[in-house]
């Protein structure tokens, strides 16, 4: 870790939480820190960030109206880091808990969250219960403010939950949510995330998920907003036959940078993991994908697959991709693939020759490119919602 002068940010941490030490220890990572080589945090270093003021219900409602949200299921809304009671209700089957988020070492976004954490969702789905759909909306509105919600979600054995997790807002802010997820034996958590923050915001999310025997963490992330966004997932398959899906789509335009970083840790035998990440880049957009699969010596019979593809639609767009395999077990089947390129001229020509306008033809091809990843969202309703959200 490299020390770096980030006086404003560090002073803010020290003032707000009296825990500046945690951040001062690691410092704000520079590009010389391997995990951040493609994602510079300079833009947040010099702002005198403030704790956010509570968000009035009317302001929250106005923001909610602009979002594409599920019409069924339960909904919980946070505004500037505070629960908005008037707009929130938990699913009936879910129990409120009071547990602390477990620490996550060596991940900057988690360190920042620990220093400034605000209590978020803290729920437990009882054994054998299907809690249905829960929509979690995190709204931010303000200038130079930051929120650091800490969510803890525990699925007991055989439980299931679908979490539709939306972040959005107005203004210039840091949204730094942390999800601490425990998936019990045979339990399933479907986590669909939509990141549509303000285009001047910084989004630094980190999800850690521990999956027990035959449990499943099935996630999909749409990264489409923010000036700079990283969604980081750390999934540990700690017992036999555990399973993880860490899929995603990134749509980046303007001068923005979106980053999807993941670490899938196979720590027990017979686990499987699947990852498909697609990035579409236009204007001077920058895309980052860093995906690591780590297979411990004990994790024999691991089946790991990872695919990441990027489509560059403009001269100034750029992609940085680092798919990584670290394997210590011999009886495994692990593979990854990566492609980078532009739209296929021949495909374009084919569509044009059938009388389809150039712009429409391009749209069709981009959509076709993304559909592989979108199709991995098993819930049809949510898939439609994602498509609508992408084009809204």
């Amino acid at each position, binding site marked *: 870790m490299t020390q770096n002068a980030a006086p404003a940010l560090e002073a803010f941490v020290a003032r707000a939480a009296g825990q500046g030490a945690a951040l001062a220890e690691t410092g704000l990572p520079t590009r010389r820190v391997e995990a951040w080589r493609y994602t510079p945090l300079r833009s947040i270093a010099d702002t005198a960030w403030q704790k956010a003021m509570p968000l009035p219900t009317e302001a929250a409602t106005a923001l909610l109206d602009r979002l594409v949200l599920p019409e069924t299921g339960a909904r919980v809304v946070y505004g500037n880091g505070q629960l908005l009671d008037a707009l929130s209700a938990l699913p009936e089957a879910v129990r409120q808990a009071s547990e602390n988020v477990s620490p996550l070492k060596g991940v900057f976004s988690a360190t920042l969250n620990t220093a400034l954490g605000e209590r978020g969702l803290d729920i437990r789905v009882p054994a054998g219960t299907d809690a249905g759909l829960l929509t979690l909306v995190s709204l931010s509105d303000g200038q130079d403010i930051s929120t650091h919600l800490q969510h803890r979600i525990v699925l007991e054995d055989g439980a299931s939950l679908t979490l539709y997790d939306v972040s959005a807002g107005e203004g210039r802010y840091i949204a730094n949510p942390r999800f601490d997820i425990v998936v019990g034996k045979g339990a399933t958590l479907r986590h669909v995330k939509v990141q549509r923050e303000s285009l001047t915001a910084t989004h630094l999310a980190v999800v850690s998920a521990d999956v027990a025997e035959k449990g499943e963490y099935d996630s999909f992330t749409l990264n489409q907003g923010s000036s700079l966004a990283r969604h980081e997932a750390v999934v540990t398959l700690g017992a036999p036959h555990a399973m993880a899906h860490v899929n995603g789509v990134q749509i980046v335009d303007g001068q923005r940078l979106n980053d999807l970083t993941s670490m899938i840790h196979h720590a027990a035998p017979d686990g499987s993991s699947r990852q498909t990440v697609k990035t579409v880049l236009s204007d001077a957009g920058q895309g980052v994908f860093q995906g690591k699969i780590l297979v411990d010596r004990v994790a*024999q019979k691991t089946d790991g697959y990872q695919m990441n593809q990027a489509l560059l639609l403009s001269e100034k767009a750029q992609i940085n991709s680092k*798919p990584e395999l*670290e*394997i210590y077990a*011999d009886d495994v089947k*692990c593979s990854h693939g*990566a492609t*980078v390129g*532009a739209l296929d001229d021949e495909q374009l020509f084919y569509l044009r020759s059938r009388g389809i306008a150039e712009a429409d033809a391009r749209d069709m091809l981009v959509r076709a490119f993304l559909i592989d990843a979108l199709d991995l969202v098993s819930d049809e309703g949510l898939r439609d919602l994602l498509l609508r959200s992408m084009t809204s």
Partner: protein
Amino acid sequence: MPAVTETRETVEKLAKSSYEWGFETDIEMDIAPKGLNEETVRLISERKGEPQWMLDWRLKAFRAWLEMEEPTWAHIHHPPIDYQDAHYFAQPKKKPGPKSLDEVDPELLKTYAKLGIPLHEQALLAGVEGAEERLPVAVDAVFDSVSVATTFRKTLAEAGVIFCPISDAIREHPELVQKYLGTVVPVADNFFAALNSAVFTDGSFVYIPEGVRCPMELSTYFRINARNTGQFERTLIIAEDRATVSYLEGCTAPQRDENQLHAAVVELVAMEDASIKYSTVQNWYPGDDEGRGGIYNFVTKRGICRGARSKISWTQVETGSAITWKYPSCVLAGEGSVGEFYSVAVTNNHQQADTGTKMIHLAPNTRSTIIAKTISAGHSDSTYRGLVRMQPKARNARNFTQCDSLLIGDQCGAHTVPYIESRNMTARVEHEATTSKISEDQLFYCRSRGLSEEDAVGLIVNGFCREVLKELPMEFAVEAQKLLQISLEGSVG
């Protein structure tokens, strides 16, 4: 179970004799005192009778090195290296001007004979049986950093090719050396390259003039022979417009207990329509079964395709060394130039390899291909680490990368760390990687046809590496296949 006992005995026997090229030759050496400081650099330069500009160049590198830190990003572990606890200069004592073989120390010739280096013309010609059309191979034999005998210089000179120890080139062709040395790998490029620039003692220099196809394959055999001598080779190859050359580098080293540091630098320059093929078989002492001893191999190899349509191709078979840290790279600066990297890296026992390539596409229509095969056995760790970068001007550039890892045994590791960076929408990059173990079905098939387990593994591994081995010049391909088998001995059963 007599069969099992027999297998075990065979394996044990093999493990004991596994490094068949481990021997030491007793020759009088001229050794500099241990330690590294400006005086050491001056001494090396003085002993080699170098001009002032060369000394200045070395000192610049040395001062840069002092400011640099040893890199730690590679997936390797070793005790700290004490750079002061090594000799930086060792030279076989020789009478002035051993221009013919008769004058060469007979002990040295015996060493070459043991290595099977065909130094004589007849041996060279007989080297490849049945290949009538094949041209002979020129050997610039490097014995502990100093080229002692060079053959075929005359034939090469007639073609206008310069192939000589780099220390001779510094004296005889200073204008060429000055023009190109350090242009591909700058003195302060990285920690080990800076160290090499400061203290390199010898290496090869090749210059192929415009339009010349080098009449024979050039070959340098490297040996590390004296105790506690670091090996710092420096190789510079220049192919002018439309020139073509194939260069072979092969290594074997005697068995010893102490770790030895090796930090070589190879620079290639290809001008318009030129082509350089650089092949390596690296089989330095890997340490014993417990991981004691072995060579630390920190190498910087880089080529630049300066001219349009030029081509640089790296092929390597890495079976030796305790630690391999090596990333032969291509900078594709000429329009339509081509870079290739074919690699087999085998690690066994406690070996560690972190190797790969960089393909930097600067110009339009450039193409690169990367095929990397990694085989890990025993307690070893092997990493492919590579970078493909498409710069904004790399219109219609292409890259294809394939990395396959094979694991033999459950105590080893195989890792893949590719970096893909693209700044041009018309550039296309494709990367694929797989990791698996030797297929039980294939093993069973071979065993059912009466092959021993070792032979079966050897056969499968050779098949796994075929795409790379076929890129090697014929003389090397045979040696490489044998090496793969020897390297993996004791890894099954």
